[in-house]
């Protein structure tokens, strides 16, 4: 199980410069087999939260746990338990998906046989066989995203953390990625995704956190959120929490 406890991240510009609270005292959890949806407008703090979860940046206060292992004290072990994907991370276009998966498998300390087995499964599940020997630079956006998904999961992590995984994808690729994530959850993985596409969130996620200006406005299952009466659908609840300025910014 992944537990986020009072997570706060403050960015400071230079020494003694202005501070921005990107994430403020955030707590939630996600169990194996569950998909947790982190929803929010641009600048709400979704990516910062997920970056803290992925060990890329350190929380200013609070902590993140996967079972007995926490992000502050056991960075490298923590990383072995997560698969992280974000839209601002790109792949080295010079290499092929096949090579990159093998290489990341080695970096994740996997045996050759295990790498081959994982590659075969991921290539099959994500329907990648047609392009695994082509250079990543020559692939379409969808193919690149599938490659990125496969690389982030090559070491078969317990927790999958995807930031806007369907961003910029066509409907077909988008569906195959969300189906894949659903299948991962069914296999017992803990899945956390951020998105601002409500239809995808409703279909994919079991629980949600609506994040505005670094703080949760709603947190729980769809039923729990709708029962509070802020709206009849997740989309209505989402918009009810967004100030007019943020709607216009979005």
């Amino acid at each position, binding site marked *: 199980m992944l537990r986020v406890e009072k997570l706060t991240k403050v960015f400071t510009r230079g020494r003694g410069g202005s501070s921005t609270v990107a994430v403020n005292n955030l707590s939630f959890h996600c169990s194996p087999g569950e998909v947790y949806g982190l929803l929010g407008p641009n600048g709400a703090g979704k990516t910062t939260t997920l970056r803290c979860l992925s060990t*890329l940046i350190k929380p200013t206060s609070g902590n993140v746990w996967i079972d007995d292992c926490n992000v502050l004290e056991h960075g490298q072990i923590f*990383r*072995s338990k997560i698969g992280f994907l974000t839209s601002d*991370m*790109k792949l080295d276009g010079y290499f092929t998906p096949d090579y990159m998966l093998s290489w990341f498998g080695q970096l994740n300390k996997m045996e050759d046989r295990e790498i081959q087995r994982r590659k075969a499964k991921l290539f099959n599940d994500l329907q990648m066989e047609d392009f695994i020997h082509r250079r990543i630079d020559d692939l379409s956006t969808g193919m690149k995203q599938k490659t990125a998904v496969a690389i*982030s999961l090559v070491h078969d992590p317990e927790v999958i953390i995807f930031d806007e995984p369907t961003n910029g994808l066509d409907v077909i690729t988008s569906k195959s990625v969300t189906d894949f994530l659903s299948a991962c959850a069914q296999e017992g993985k803990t899945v956390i995704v951020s998105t601002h596409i409500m239809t995808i969130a409703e279909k994919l996620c079991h629980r949600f956190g609506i994040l505005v200006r670094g703080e949760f406005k709603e947190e729980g299952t769809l039923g729990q959120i709708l029962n509070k009466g802020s709206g009849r659908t997740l989309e209505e609840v989402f918009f009810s929490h967004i100030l007019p300025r943020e709607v216009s910014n979005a």
Partner: protein
Amino acid sequence: MLKDSMIILKKELRRIFTDRRLLFMLVVLPLIMLPLMYSFMGRANRSRQSDIAQYRSRVAVLVPHDSQRAAAPILEGLEAMNAALMFIDESELDSTMARVTGKELELIIVFPDAMDGNGSTISWDLAAYHNSTADYSEFALEQFTALLSLLNDSLVRQRITEQGLSPEILSAITVNASKDPGTVDLAGEGSLMGKIIGMMVPFFIVIYLFANAMKVGLDSVAGEKERGTLGVLLVNQVGRLSIVLGKMMSVMTAAIVGAVSSAIGLKIASRYLIDLVSEGGEAIADYTMTTMDFMQFGVLVIPLAILISSIVLLVSTFAKNVKEGQGIVMPVYLLIMVMGMTTMQSGDIAPHWMRLTPVFNTLAALKDIFMKTAVWGDILFATGTSLFLSAILISVTLRMFNDERILFRV
């Protein structure tokens, strides 16, 4: 940790050595650059010398009536030098000077008045107007000065003889006048070439070490930041020290490949270089290095490559993108070039401060190796300073790798 570094190194090297364009820049360019450069310079130099030698200098001469007899042998000498003489009078002097300035003529020689009849006592002062910005004019002046020197010697001897004295009194003390020049230079065989090589090689080695380290190193971290590929690496089970070491080893490999390539290029270029530096004397091709020389060379160059790679990697880690990295690293590159040039010009006795300064001491010790005067103490001290400084730089780079403000600043 080292295993992870090797995995990173393997990928980086695959990237470097399978990319034809990068390979051309890192390996082929340093290899062909020096032969091409020296071949071109040698050709240009030979062509220039040949043009000048075949050129018929245009010399204007002003000879007063009362100096014609005394001037005759000088004018004969000028004609023998293939100079085209043009006689002018006093009134034409200014306009003729303007022609020299305009490079229409090479030289004006003005003889003094009343040279005839005063041959045995008076010292004459001839005027030679020339144009120092014109090669042909300078060559004509050089030839004329040489001619006058010979005539002067002959006249002085004649005057002394006319006085009933022996010309031998002109030379009270001489050096090696009766010796074969080949027997008095006791330099060891090949050491002249060693000195020439010692001046050139360390300079080119440090230049190509740095140039190749820049080509690969700036892209290695700053380029990855720019492309957004660094994050993917950081979220995997690999320590940041392993990443730094893996990347540093790849930068170092590229740097060493460039240095070796340029050294081979210099060897190929030697036949052109010899034309430039020693007018066909001793051949660089005959210069040999012993196993010990190679060992000392390796002991010095590898730590230098580590140091240079550490500098470049530190800049690459600090910079937001490759462009910013280039801006930061360029002054360091220029400084290293100045160090190389200073070593080149410092003769065979390196100043004491040079032996204590990192990079400088390595270059001085490299020079010693080629001149066969290397001392293990100097070599190990230079190696020690390079490695010590590298360790500090790697440690700073590692701190930067753990600082999200530096690693993710945009």
